């Protein structure tokens, strides 16, 4: 495991070093961005809407019983933008995009396409890893912004139309505006960039390590998704702990 983490850090470092050349790979970055958007936007929307709704449903009636219903908007808003938005989107992208990246690079490895690149003196990190990593690092924060907005909307709908939570749209949004600041949104965005690095690096690393034919590709994909989700949750705690003191 530690060897794997070491290799991933090294892979990320090599990709980061070639970041100044990302403009040369812009066509591939845009292709990846399109893939990510196309594959994830609808799911992100649906997921966020229900996450926001469930949050409101869970905390709304309890707060209402104690006469604290005016804080529902702020509570839902904070939970979604600082925690649920970034984490849920990262898990979604790890499952949908990370797995696809691992499968694609893994197949390329199995069918000697990566060997062919090396014989042409084309660095697989520059050609394959960099555009994918760059695209995820751009796409995930954008998806998180989108998810946060839709999640807030989901929370508002449930808060207003659920009879157990006596809140109006105006009260919900006013409280959300009072409690959620730019710093809270930045908190979520910083997390999402860190998660993007984890997803991209883990997915590409597992793809490049693939051996053993189609079964090996399947094994790598499973490992990629599981490792990415575990690392996201661990990193989430660490980042939250650090950012609380900032």
């Amino acid at each position, binding site marked *: 495991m530690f060897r794997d983490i070491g290799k991933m850090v090294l892979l990320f470092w090599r990709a980061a070093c070639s970041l100044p050349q990302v403009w040369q790979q812009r066509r591939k970055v845009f292709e990846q961005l399109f893939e990510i958007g196309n594959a994830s936007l609808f799911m992100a929307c649906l997921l966020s809407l229900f996450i926001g709704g469930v949050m409101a449903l869970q905390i709304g009636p309890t707060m209402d019983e104690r006469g604290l219903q005016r804080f529902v908007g702020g509570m839902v808003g904070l939970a979604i933008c600082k925690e649920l938005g970034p984490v849920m989107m990262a898990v979604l992208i790890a499952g949908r995009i990370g797995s696809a990246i691992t499968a694609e690079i893994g197949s*390329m490895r199995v069918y000697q396409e990566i060997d*062919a690149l*090396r*014989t*042409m*003196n*084309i660095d697989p990190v520059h050609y394959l890893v960099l555009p994918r990593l760059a695209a995820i690092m751009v796409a995930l924060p954008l998806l998180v912004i989108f998810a946060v907005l839709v999640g807030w909307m989901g929370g508002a709908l449930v808060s207003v139309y659920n009879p157990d939570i006596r809140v109006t749209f105006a009260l919900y949004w006013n409280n959300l505006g009072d409690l959620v600041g730019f710093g809270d949104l930045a908190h979520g965005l910083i997390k999402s960039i860190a998660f993007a690095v984890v997803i991209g690096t883990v997915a590409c690393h597992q793809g490049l390590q693939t051996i053993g034919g189609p079964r090996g590709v399947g094994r790598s994909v499973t490992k990629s998704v599981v490792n990415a989700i575990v690392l996201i949750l661990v990193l989430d705690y660490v980042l939250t702990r650090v950012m609380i003191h900032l």
Partner: protein
Amino acid sequence: MMSALATNGHGPPVELRGLHKGFAGRPVLHGIDLKVEPGEIFVIMGPSGSGKSVLLKHVIGLEKPDAGEVLVGGESMAAEAALDRHRMAMVFQSGALLNSLTVAENVGLYLAEHRLKSQDDIDQIVTEKLLLVGLAGEGEKIPAELSGGMKKRVAIARALVMEPELLLYDEPTSELDPLMAATVGREIVNLKQRQHVTSIVVSHDRDLAFGIADRVAIMREGRILCVGTPAEVRRSGDARVKEFLEVSFKKDNTQETS
């Protein structure tokens, strides 16, 4: 970054010294010593599983030896950026085309990624090379639409685009019909004559091997059994070499008549 595309001198010499390699504790190469002269066509023959392809991968740096070293142009392939010093290409047995790219993009990939030519020049070179391997007009297809033989020809075109100094072929005529196999053989010889490319060819194809080779090595179970000119190898007294060179399928007439 590599030097300019035009090659005036001979291809580099290749030397293998005491090359050992094993996978999961199973030895594949047992101390291979070989020397390939500059501009030579050197053919390595041997039964399947004898370590020929593994040996080829060591030459281009895709595998690292457990012991011994590979010298290309007198410089170790273990050195940093060894591929920067000599332009090398390899034609893989499977073709190893990038499945997400079209045939034309595959062939022009080296020039495009290293920004060696304008897009118009790349398109022209790609068209020429595809014509050379008998695939004119197939540039917009994707590899999944090609037969095994066509993939192999695209791989050869992709290698030719690099105008390499050292060209490695892993079974270049497998899956090709005899006419196309002869074309590939002629192109290997032409490259030597035009650009003095050093070529190392791994093949089972005895016609190809003895037709194009300056020297032939016979390999078995990770060891070189004999090296020499085609005539010298044919005269070899080693029973294993004779067996490999002379074995042929004979129809059992007694079975047919019974």
